[in-house]
């Protein structure tokens, strides 16, 4: 038989309520024990923090990132161990989709089904009841359950309608720090903090680990304590160890007072205690009482026993199993019976001797060695698994703005998606939409805001995150996390994104605080910060890019030019693998020479596009010719629009300059085809390329741009460049031919082929390497030569 192999869901270690407590600790112990019993255990982790915690908890533990690839690489005999089955708050990704797709067998770790058994108390909200029903349905799809007690197994089988013969009782175990000690001085020293809240080291103590929940029966315990003879109580304190909320403490205080007992003297409630304080409380106690009305496994009973403490407990649920002898139990619903057994446990020498023996036996029974062996035996017992080949159709997510976004990258992403899914590729591409600062909805597509909650990175084989330097990428940027996948930097700076988010907020204080945090994350020293944090040009002048955290998290980086690659290299010499991917042009029909002299600048308009320079050039041209139109095709902020309107009015160019606002695809095509010349200017260009330029070229429309060449800063110089294209048909045709040739060099078909090769490489990419898309798609050179 092949060695048992188990993938354990390690995310439970950081679950908000279970991580540092019972369920998290149980999972760590179970992994350690199964490894010790010979199982090949791999812990799947979703973050560096979880990975560190697992490695700190178990020496030599094997961890793997929770990815679709990791899961699909497993043979069908592998088990997936579900550790978040019944947690509250309810975990949404209990069994990753990839586990189901890969057909792996699933075993769930069951701690209790108490909420199902007492819905009036624990499932009060309708939503909670519905979620519990769903969770039960999910559990019924599991192959096996591992249970901590026979009681849990029996009740789970009944309430979840799960076959009892597929639930294996593996028990629970006591951590090694729970051990006896006779060193009274040391014990008292470790309890010094509790003396301050009322613990009296001169009196014998009876310890109870309970809780605020009625099921823990703390009021019943207090009442039974009050029933003891006063002289016996005078020599003893009842110490209730548990964390409580003020309302519960107030209620208990009232009960204590009503019964004539002293609060924090006869009865001491500790609130949260450390592990060491808990052990010390047991070690020096005369007796431990566990009065609960129901427990999946009463671990404190076993822990008290292991600490050398005499233990008595309720005679219900799993507790008789844990203590292992009915003579050490009482009826938790009968205060007089509880009082009687507590009294015997303190005064009856014979009974006290018996309790020592019972505790010794109990503590020897609940070991991790036993849990590990039982779990391995249970999973080995089931040798049935499907060997049918499961299809593993790879999925790649393209994240960013799409059609409807003011960002030009939105339309560009839409074209990538169309090109990818129109040909047979090695993976399906799914769009994940960034709706930042738009009024659109995701429709039937996924919204990036749901990433990590309603769908996850490990639902995909690869994530391609597209970023530009505007606020329309804020949600994509926020979703990157520490495993960012492939990051496509259409501009090698995020200044516009961060500053744009600030302006978008309309809250200067908030925006500045956020920018300070981001500058610190990027490691920019305060002396380099611009005086006005919301001034994008100030950041550019200081060579601030905000890229450092993104490059640290990126699997690879995609840029548009060698210049942009140089920026990345200058920030991080040991940079992630870089792909230089030129902007692709769509396969459009060639435009004919239009009637009229229309100049078009298209895309989201901001200061970096130098609109005033372009208006200045038109003003110069207006001295030479009369029938010119300058069209800014795309949206812009109301503030900029108001300022540009004033500039236009001051120059008396109202009939010459037009702002269209945002255009749909049809309107945009119509506007582009009216262009005699396209103009795309960019201030502080640092290696980015323009999709608008590619769009003009794809139609053979002449373009004047300074994005790839020396920056144009003078309106008259720009006017001189525009003049021949507007006045000479021969010059226009020559420029159109040149534009058309350039527009055929790298098409979207080439782009998706290069992207496919890059995202799913035959060999891993090396850090510090730079690859050019043309090398991945040799045939793209043919387009240029054919033209």
């Amino acid at each position: 038989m092949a060695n048992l192999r188990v993938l354990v869901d390690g995310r439970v270690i950081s679950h908000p309520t279970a991580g540092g407590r019972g369920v998290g600790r149980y999972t760590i112990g179970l992994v350690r024990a199964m490894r010790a019993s010979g199982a090949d255990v791999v812990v799947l982790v979703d973050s560096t923090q979880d990975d560190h915690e697992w490695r700190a908890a178990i020496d030599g533990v094997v961890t793997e990132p929770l990815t679709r690839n990791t899961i699909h690489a497993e043979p069908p005999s592998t088990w997936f161990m579900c550790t978040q089955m019944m947690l509250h708050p309810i975990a949404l990704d209990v069994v990753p989709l990839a586990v189901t797709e890969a057909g792996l067998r699933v075993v769930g770790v069951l701690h209790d089904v108490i909420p199902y058994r007492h819905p009036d108390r624990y499932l009060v909200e309708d939503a909670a009841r519905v979620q519990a029903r769903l969770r039960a349905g999910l559990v019924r799809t599991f192959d096996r359950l591992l249970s901590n007690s026979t009681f849990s197994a029996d009740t789970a089988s009944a309430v979840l309608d799960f076959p009892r013969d597929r639930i294996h009782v593996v028990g629970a175990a006591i951590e090694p720090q729970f051990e006896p000690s006779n060193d009274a001085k040391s014990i008292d020293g470790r309890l010094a903090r509790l003396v301050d809240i009322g613990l009296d080291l001169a009196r014998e103590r009876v310890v109870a680990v309970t809780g605020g929940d009625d099921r823990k029966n703390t009021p019943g315990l207090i009442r039974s304590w009050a029933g003891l003879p006063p002289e016996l109580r005078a020599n003893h304190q009842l110490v209730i160890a548990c964390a409580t909320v003020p309302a519960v403490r107030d209620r208990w205080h009232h009960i204590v007072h009503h019964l004539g007992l002293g609060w924090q003297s006869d009865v001491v409630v500790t609130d949260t205690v450390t592990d060491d304080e808990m052990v010390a409380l047991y070690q020096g106690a005369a007796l431990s009482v566990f009065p609960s009305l129901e427990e999946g496994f009463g671990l404190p009973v076993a822990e008290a026993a292991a600490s050398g403490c005499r233990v008595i407990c309720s005679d219900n649920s799993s507790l008789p199993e844990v203590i292992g002898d009915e003579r050490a139990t009482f009826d938790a619903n009968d205060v007089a019976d509880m009082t009687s057994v507590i009294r015997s446990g303190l005064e009856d020498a014979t009974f006290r001797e018996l309790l020592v023996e019972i505790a010794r036996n109990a503590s020897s029974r609940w070991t991790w060695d036993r849990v590990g062996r039982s779990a391995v035996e249970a999973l080995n017992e089931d040798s049935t698994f499907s060997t049918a080949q499961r299809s593993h159709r790879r999925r790649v997510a393209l994240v960013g703005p799409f059609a409807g976004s003011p960002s030009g990258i939105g339309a560009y992403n839409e074209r990538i998606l169309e090109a990818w899914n129109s040909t047979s590729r090695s993976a399906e591409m799914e769009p994940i939409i960034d709706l930042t600062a738009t009024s659109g909805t995701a429709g039937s597509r996924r919204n990036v805001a749901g990433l990590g909650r309603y769908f996850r990175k490990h639902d995909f084989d690869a994530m391609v995150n597209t970023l530009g330097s505007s606020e329309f990428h804020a949600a994509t940027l926020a979703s990157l996390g520490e495993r960012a996948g492939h990051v496509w930097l259409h501009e090698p700076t995020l200044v516009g994104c961060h500053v744009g988010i600030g302006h978008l907020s309309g809250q200067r204080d908030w925006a500045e605080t956020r920018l300070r945090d981001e500058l610190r994350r990027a490691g920019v020293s305060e002396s380099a910060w611009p005086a006005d944090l919301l001034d994008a040009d100030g950041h550019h002048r200081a060579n601030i890019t905000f890229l450092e955290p993104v490059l640290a998290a990126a699997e690879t980086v995609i840029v548009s030019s060698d210049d942009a690659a140089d920026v990345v290299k200058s920030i991080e010499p040991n940079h992630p693998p870089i792909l230089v991917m030129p902007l692709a042009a769509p396969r459009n029909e060639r435009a004919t020479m239009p009637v009229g002299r229309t100049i078009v600048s298209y895309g989201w308009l901001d200061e970096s596009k130098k609109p005033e320079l372009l208006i200045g050039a038109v003003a110069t041209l207006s001295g030479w010719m009369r029938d010119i139109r300058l069209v800014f095709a795309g949206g812009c902020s109301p503030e900029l629009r108001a300022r540009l309107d004033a500039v236009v009015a001051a120059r008396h160019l109202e009939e010459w300059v037009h702002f269209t606002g945002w255009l749909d695809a049809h309107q945009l095509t119509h506007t582009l085809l009216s262009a005699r010349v396209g103009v795309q200017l960019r201030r502080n260009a640092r290696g980015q390329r323009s999709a608008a330029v590619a769009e003009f070229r794809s139609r053979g429309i002449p373009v004047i741009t300074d994005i790839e060449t020396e920056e144009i800063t003078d309106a008259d110089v720009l006017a001189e460049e525009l003049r021949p294209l507007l006045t000479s048909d021969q010059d226009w045709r020559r420029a159109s031919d040149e534009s058309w040739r350039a527009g055929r060099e790298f098409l979207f078909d080439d782009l998706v082929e290069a992207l496919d090769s890059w995202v799913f490489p035959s060999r891993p990419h090396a850090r510090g390497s730079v690859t050019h898309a043309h090398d991945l798609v040799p045939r793209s050179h043919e387009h240029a030569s054919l033209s």
Partner: protein
Amino acid sequence: MRVVKALLTRITGRDVRALRAEVAEIRNQVQVINDVVQSLNHDVRSGADRSLPLFLGYAERVRLDADTAVGAVQSIERQIARLEALIDEASTPAKRS
């Protein structure tokens, strides 16, 4: 479904009962989704008719119900996968090791 029908003619007894139970389970889950969506629709509409602070509470309800829908989908995905496995098993018994 013609393929499934054809497969079902070849299996009998326990396997048929198991398949029926699985399908019933799926139907139950779909019913849950249907209930949640209808209730959500009602609540959001009636919430929107009232004041904004109230609507914030409904927004939280929307989030909770979206969570529930996600849970339901996960359950359905697994049940369908099991159904497929059962059909696989019924059609080619030799494929089980």
